[in-house]
């Protein structure tokens, strides 16, 4: 391990890829500056619509490049590959989240949350009856606190439409 690697704050693995992606993204944004922003005639420089995006993207590119240049190790190694795999596998949780978001307007907040929490708790290894009960209790508590008491804006599910009259409006309003 070099002296720079030893003094580097945080792990060295994965840093080069992140820095390269950041610099490339900044370059792409900078290349779009002319088409994605407008230069207004007869307006001061600091009031130009293009001024702040130019400062921001320029700063991103400059400091991104400096960061990349100052990295203790730029060559890719096996440890980097392991790190990218971890980043990739995290996408599973994104998928879980997006499926949950898609299901809520269909099934309704309470049933979707109950199913989501139980399934996800099972997926991460809490399959004992005790943990399942705790998970179910947590799901109901979240819905009751936020939807019933705090009345956050989450629309009732489409499935509630099939419920009989009074129960339907009760469920739409509270769960």
């Amino acid at each position, binding site marked *: 391990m070099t*002296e*720079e690697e030893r*003094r*580097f*704050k*945080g*792990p060295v693995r*994965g840093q080069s890829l*992140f*820095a390269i992606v950041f610099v490339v993204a900044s370059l792409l*944004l900078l290349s779009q500056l002319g088409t*994605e*922003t*407008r230069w*207004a005639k007869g*307006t001061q420089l*600091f*009031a130009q*619509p*293009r001024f*702040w*995006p130019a*400062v*921001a*993207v*320029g*700063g*991103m590119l400059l*400091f*991104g490049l*400096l*960061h990349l240049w*100052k990295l203790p190790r730029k060559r890719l190694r096996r440890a980097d590959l392991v790190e990218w795999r*971890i*980043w990739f596998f*995290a996408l599973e*949780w*994104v998928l879980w*989240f997006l499926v*949950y*978001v*898609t299901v*809520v307007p269909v099934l309704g907040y309470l049933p979707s949350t109950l199913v*989501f*929490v139980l399934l*996800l*708790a099972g997926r*991460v*290894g*809490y399959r004992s009856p005790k*943990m399942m009960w705790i*998970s179910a209790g947590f*799901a109901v508590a*979240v819905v009751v606190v*936020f939807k019933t008491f705090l*009345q*956050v*804006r*989450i*629309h009732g599910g489409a499935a509630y439409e099939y419920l009989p009259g009074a129960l339907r409006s009760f469920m739409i309003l509270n769960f």
Partner: protein
Amino acid sequence: MELLVSAVEILARWDVILALVVGSVGGVMIGAIPGVGPAVAIAILLPATFSMDPIVGLTVLLGIYGSSMYGGAIPAILINTPGTAVNALTTYDGFPMTARGEARRALSLAYSASFFGGVFSVICLILFAPVLARIAPMFGSREIFLAALLGLILVVIAHRGQTLIAAAMAFFGIFLNTVGLEPVKYSKRYTFDQSWLSSGVDLIVVVLGLFALSQAFYLLQGDDEKVRLTPLRGGLFQGLRELSRHPRVAGVSGAFGVVMGMIPGVGEFTAQFMSYTSAQRSSKRPEDFGHGSSEGLIAAETSNNAVPAAAMVPLLALGIPGEALTAMMLSVFYVHNVVPGPQLFQNDMPFVVALYLALLVLNVLVLIFLLSATGHLVKVVKIPNRFLGVGILTLSFVGVYSLRNSFTDCLIAACFGVFGFVLKRLSLPAVPIVLGMVLGGIMEVKLRAGMARVKTPLDFIDRPIAMILFVMILGVLALHIRHVLIERRKLKEAKWSARRRSTRFGMQMFRRRDYLSTERGKKVREKRSKYVPRSTGPRSPR
């Protein structure tokens, strides 16, 4: 006195009192769970507070902000894992005390020191409020621009060893703020003809992604840790007595907390570091620091709890948040059309004092709660990490979806969640992104307004406060450059001292030749440097 009465009237409502209790108790519990932290909790609760009155919503968030550090001391002391990031220094002296069998003494001392820090800063700021009310109107567009710029620079250079990437992240935050419809010329910026980008990138969606979702992904991806708790014995009141034996350490640490908290971008870490170093220097037993010193624990806990009240000063007086948590609170003000800044101090001083009084009451509530419920509270430390991940992911949905019931918001938040996850894995800072977004918007508006009345660049700093701020910016940059140069020299020295010779054959042969030629050269030079007169004596007989 009239001001105090008006402030008490604002607070004397059942919903405010309930918000205080919920915020303070909830904050302690959130702080006590390693892996959650106040940023996650505030990000999740933010949209829920939009439907409340500003004072109620802010009280809940202030409660979480102000009390989480009390709770964070519990796992720091008992299991050597800080509950919130700012409790890291508490582990230095707190955990060794637990290892000696003095867990209850350490907890009691931490609570007492935190209480002193919290109350000390609120009292300082209530006394300081009239002065602030006089100074705040002197801040025009230029001064606010320069103060925001100073704050951003301080945030960046506070990330020692990561300044370059912190600056890149701050610029990324500024960029995110520019996306959408520009408010003066009504021209689109970086929307790529996508209708969902026209309204810009919502700060709360970014905050929820970067702090809450990323934390959920991080916990779900990791493993559960086995926690072994030390049983608590003895009373919790002894800390107050012990604290009274170190008034100087507590006072100095509280003062550091107040001063550092007021400077945007500096915050708890610098306050803690300075008060800890100061306490160690002035201690009769400096060798005990890091090995269970009561003075060290007092210094760390007093200074970090003195910061939240002080951090509200730049937010309320200038509308400039100094850190991620106050940046989130700023959005509550905006939602209710309450614009923090000089006008708030001039027109609505009772509201400002009410917030400070709420912080004062909050500290008392938290102390009472902790003294009576610590025995039960320590059990929250045992919640497994991955289950916490499930919980945070479920709660994050409420935060993002309840904003506009939009799938796109959730998708953007998920993208920022992955980005935040990668930042966490690489130990890179996410806070500059949020501050870049908030301060970037302020800087854009104020620079435009400030430059409208300026003919030459020097006119921009012709007012005393603008000049002071400008000199401060130059000073901070100069100090940072000096620090970078010193670090560079140290690195060079370390590299020279740790330099190793190559073991390759060619290099060895090269060194051998070099050695031989040097040695031979030495001999030749030695021979030539000496005057050896030719022997003229009689030849020896054969």
